[in-house]
């Protein structure tokens, strides 16, 4: 007879099994046993424009986990915290699962079936148009939905609903880069490929903090084996600046002056490529004369840097063979942002640092599909980077899309700021907000939110019922999110990548694509959009619209080819496709050999020095720097800078706040970075709080005393909603992108809470 052994020590059991790991197969390595997949598939991350490939771990086709895709050419098996946690925001309890309509009597939101919601949409929007004209309705869209969805929305609104004024939140992030490229290079064409991070001898980052804002691009910088100079122009000592070989802590918004000074100094040293200038550019002599007055003395005085530091900067740029320039929001969100971006482009042009490996004037994009929006949303430009004002462009689009003549509007839409002004003037009475949180993010959110109250009808289409904008809606349309639908994104380096449906949307939520199709049906314009049936069918239309354009994608077979090749950069024309196919029998791109794949994987533009302007020459654009609109004074003696807080926060935190693990990686309360000397000056103690007051509003933030900001400057991350009302309402005259980066504030120390 044996007694059961007394379990003095339990080495195993249900709690241990909970954490068991087993081989996941599919090249994943070990995974949690509870989450062992029976299949995997790849898709592009839906946060930023780095465009990382993620591998979804599937059980019965549904994603149970995610990991970065080691075979994807962008991220090489890595992801930032947002990418790792990309599924968590889909499971949030505040997802919109049914349409909600505000009851006019009670003022309360009530759940309604889709047919009622669509009925309300159509009748209220049409009634606005009948009373106030067809252009009294507008939409504000996003850089976060698929290209096919943006395209359908643009076609539906402008061709089917008779609307004109529309814009998207890319106005807040990438409008400047778009306009700068278009004017200088003839097309909105960021010329680089991510391999350039690794191929460069000298990387100049202007107003860009990739270590935190684009961690996976920073990974590519650290993979550079050429011992590169990393030069960072930023008022703050950011994580990137700390890792740089030279940090130039220039005075806020002295960037344009400094860049002109750089040009002058390089010319002075003869460090320019006269033959490239001669052959491929226009306007250099005038530019040379213009920058002459930007002497080192003037530049150093205005940028508040030493002459020695400036000289070092010039020398390092002048002496390295492959110089690349990279800019982000520090440039794009300024009062003279377009000229600043073009000052960077000018530097690359005059030194011939473009079109070769490791060179370029390169804009790092913000949102996952800002690039799709810039090319195919039919908002600021007619499809494919065309011009609404150009009769030939209009006729071409009408013919390609089989639209009746005269369907395409002849005027441009108003930009975001003008649409908001239009609400104030009464010109806009009905507004449709799609996948953006304007009530938090648009400049002067208080004014914006007040104006929303004047609308006759506000429709918000979003994943969540709880965003600041959704809570103000008259009608809320429940949208499926990233990974609950399919379509393509275009990343910073022009790479088209695929989003797939690996999750079921909750309740009645539908993809934006399907919502637009339903609106078309209910509106009565579905006949016009007969070809726009599925995302992949729309992709075929986009190919058709791209033919012969700089963004030609006619060589891409379809979604399967994008998937198989790890994304495909534009341009990829029919001719390029035929050039890489091994034989006539090799009819499908996805069967290409490894070497062929490598050939088309990383491609940059302008190797031949031919740009997209009518004469093929790039153009120098420049204007005298303008003083900041709100300089500091005795009453408001500090400069307020804004930007991203941490790599685990995204924009208005709508999604990143849904993940418990991400929430632990950033401060819950709004905080202000302040230099130790300034802390002493205002009597701030460690753990204290600060009252920050601008001419427009004030906030109370936790104090973060740190020398990464300079004395006289403070920094507050954009993710906290109380920041926005303080910021100045100014837009760049060319791109109409708001300047979030500079305003004058006063500080007052408060005791700890």
């Amino acid at each position, binding site marked *: 007879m044996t007694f059961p052994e007394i379990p003095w020590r339990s080495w195993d*059991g249900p709690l*241990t099994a909970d954490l068991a790991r087993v081989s996941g197969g*599919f090249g994943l390595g070990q995974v949690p046993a509870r989450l062992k997949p029976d299949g995997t598939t790849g898709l592009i991350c839906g946060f930023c424009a780095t465009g990382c490939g993620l591998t979804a771990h599937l059980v019965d086709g549904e994603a149970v986990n995610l990991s970065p895709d080691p075979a994807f050419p962008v991220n090489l098996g890595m992801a930032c915290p947002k990418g790792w946690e990309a599924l968590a925001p889909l499971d949030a309890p505040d997802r919109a699962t049914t349409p909600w309509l505000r009851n006019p009597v009670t003022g309360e939101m009530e759940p*309604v079936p889709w047919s009622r919601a669509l009925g309300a949409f159509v009748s209220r929007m049409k009634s606005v148009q009948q009373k106030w004209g067809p252009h009294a309705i507008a939409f504000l869209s996003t850089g976060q939905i698929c290209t096919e969805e943006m395209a359908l929305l643009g076609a539906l609104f402008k061709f089917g609903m008779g609307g004109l004024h529309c814009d998207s939140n890319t106005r807040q992030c990438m409008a400047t880069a778009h306009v700068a490229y278009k004017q200088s290079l003839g097309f909105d064409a960021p010329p680089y490929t991510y391999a350039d991070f690794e191929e460069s001898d000298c990387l100049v980052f202007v107003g860009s903090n990739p270590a935190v804002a684009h961690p*996976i691009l*920073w990974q590519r910088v650290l993979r550079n084996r050429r011992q590169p100079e990393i030069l960072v122009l930023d008022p703050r000592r950011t994580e990137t600046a700390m890792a740089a070989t030279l940090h130039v802590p220039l005075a806020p918004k002295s960037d344009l002056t400094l860049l002109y000074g750089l040009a002058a100094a390089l010319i002075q040293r003869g460090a320019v490529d006269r033959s490239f200038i001669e052959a491929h550019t226009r306007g250099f002599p005038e530019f040379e004369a213009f920058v002459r007055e930007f002497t080192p003395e003037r530049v150093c005085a205005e940028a508040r840097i030493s002459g020695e530091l400036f000289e070092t900067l010039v020398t390092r740029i002048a002496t390295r063979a492959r110089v690349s320039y990279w800019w982000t929001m520090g440039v794009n969100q300024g009062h003279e942002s377009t000229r600043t971006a073009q000052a960077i482009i000018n530097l690359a042009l005059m030194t011939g640092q473009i079109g070769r490996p490791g060179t370029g004037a390169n804009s790092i994009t913000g949102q996952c599909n800002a690039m799709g929006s810039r090319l195919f949303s039919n908002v600021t430009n007619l499809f494919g980077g065309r011009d609404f004002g150009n009769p030939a462009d209009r006729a071409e689009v009408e013919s390609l899309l089989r639209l009746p003549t005269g369907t395409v509007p002849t005027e441009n839409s108003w930009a975001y700021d003008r649409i908001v002004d239009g609400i104030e003037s009464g010109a806009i009475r009905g507004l449709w907000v799609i996948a953006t949180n304007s009530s938090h993010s648009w400049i002067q959110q208080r004014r914006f939110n007040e104006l929303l109250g004047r609308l006759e009808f506000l429709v918000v289409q979003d994943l969540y019922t709880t965003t600041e904008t959704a809570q103000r809606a008259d009608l809320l349309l429940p949208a499926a999110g990233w990974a609950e639908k399919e379509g393509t994104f275009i990343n910073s380096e022009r790479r088209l990548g695929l989003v797939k449906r690996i999750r079921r949307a909750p309740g009645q939520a*539908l993809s934006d694509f399907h919502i637009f199709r339903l609106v078309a049906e209910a509106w009565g314009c579905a006949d016009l959009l007969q070809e726009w049936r599925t995302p992949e069918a729309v992709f075929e239309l986009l190919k058709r619209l791209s033919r012969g354009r700089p963004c030609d994608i006619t060589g891409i077979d379809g979604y399967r080819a994008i998937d198989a090749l790890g994304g495909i950069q534009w341009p990829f024309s029919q001719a390029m496709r035929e050039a890489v196919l091994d034989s006539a029998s090799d009819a499908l791109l996805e069967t290409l050999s490894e070497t062929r794949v490598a050939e088309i994987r990383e491609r940059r533009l302008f190797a031949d020095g031919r740009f997209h302007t009518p004469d093929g020459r790039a153009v120098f654009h420049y204007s005298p720097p303008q003083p900041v609109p709100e300089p500091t004074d005795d009453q408001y003696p500090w400069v307020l800078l804004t930007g991203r807080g941490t790599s685990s926060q995204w924009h208005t935190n709508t999604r990143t706040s849904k993940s418990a693990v991400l929430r632990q990686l950033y401060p*819950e309360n709004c905080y202000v970075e302040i230099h130790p000397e300034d802390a002493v000056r205002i009597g701030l103690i460690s753990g204290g709080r600060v009252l920050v007051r601008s001419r427009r509003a004030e906030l109370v933030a936790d104090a973060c005393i740190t020398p*990464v900001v300079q004395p006289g400057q403070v920094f507050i991350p954009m993710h906290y909603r109380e920041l926005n009302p303080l910021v100045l309402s100014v837009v760049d005259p060319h791109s109409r992108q708001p300047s979030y980066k500079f305003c004058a504030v006063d500080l007052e120390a408060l005791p700890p809470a």
Partner: protein
Amino acid sequence: MKTTSPSPLGTADEERLETLVDAFLAEHRQLSAVERFSQRHADAHRPLLDTHYRALMPATPPGPGEQYAFEVDLDQCSSCKACVVACHSLNGLEPQESWREIRLLVGSRPPTASAARAEPVALAVTSACHHCVDPGCLKGCPVQAYDKDPITGIVRHLDDQCIGCSYCIFTCPYEVPKFSKSRGIVRKCDLCQGRLEVGEAPACVQACPNEAIRITRVSVNATTDRCRGEASDSDRSEAGCALPGMPSAALTVPTTVYRSRHPLSGLESRPVSGTPAPREAHWPLTVMLVLTQWGGGVLAAVALKAGLADGTPTARDAGVAALGCLGVQGGLIASVFHLGRPLQAWRIGLGWRTSWLSREAIALGIFSAVSLLFTALLAAVAWFPAWPIPSPVLPGTAVALLALLVVATLAQVQVYAVTGRVPWRLGRTIPRFAGTVWMGVVVGYGLVVGSNWTPALGLLLMGLSVAERWQFFTGGSGANAESRDGGVS
């Protein structure tokens, strides 16, 4: 869902739309990515990332006198925090759970020969379990729920052995183990033991885009010398685990190696959340300590008076002793509410060789048994004076009771003192705990002699004791490196 107001669309239109909605919803239910796109890497034998992380792992397992350790290159870390989230995802942890965490080191580096100006610094410091040579968690665990692997040195937590007492969170200077409310146990990093066994890298090593975390083999003796021998602060190129704000490495000999080319002393350590972790009051422990110490004191008063001094116990003495027993028993019951898995409490004595919590439990158990015996004896003598009890029994029991009270109280003191936290040092804890017992003695004596002021004084002092103990716990618990012995600042 139905509302009564008329629809702006006709019924036919509504029906047509609803049909379309149903078709779209049905399409959304279909998940066919694998069927539509080819399944890649179906027959991959090795993890695809293998080539990436092979250089970040030792070629061979640790030899004699060695163990595995994390090595972190602080200069390579860009503060992206992917390691924290990858640990969470690749180990299938709870929504908020990760076995890695980040703190920041903020300040200025003084001017040097190469940098004329003071350089502002904000460094992220990623940390997980340090798989210590002399692990505090293992020594503190009352149920032997920790195991240090003799070959790899990995400190593994046996989840099914754990009773959820959380004492390891106190004895780990870094508070690495985290309590899971839903499971009633603590969990911690196991250095991805199973991954290492098959040549795969731990989740955090796999996920770092900048190759800042690697696995190395370290010499156990050299690590011990560095942590407990003569510290060489000048050699900052190998900072070991002596970063600003970290508890003294001498406590548990952590094996993680932090490297930086730059001096790090003088920097200030901060949590990323901006706010320090909340400090816990630990109410069941507060009640347990107060009641057992008060009960013990009351029993001691009776033992001194009736058991030793006059030797003629009364019914009143027996009653007061019973009250003391009630306190001790109540305290023991309260302690069970502290456990995440109270049904496993029977294991508590297993760790007596190393764990003061185990010893406290055993001492209290014996004390409570003897106090019951003592009270029964008093009652027997008081009510049945004729019962022939040999004369040395009662005083003998009283002496045993007093001795056990001293032992149990000292064990209670040691439970907290060995954690190395400054507020819980011997010099601070002995007066606190002894004072509480003394209050019990005073009030017990008052009850025995029937003084009128006793109940009021008793309640007042009891209130004071609870407040004192609340302060004791909130002052000593919580992730607060500065409050620990030898904390480097």
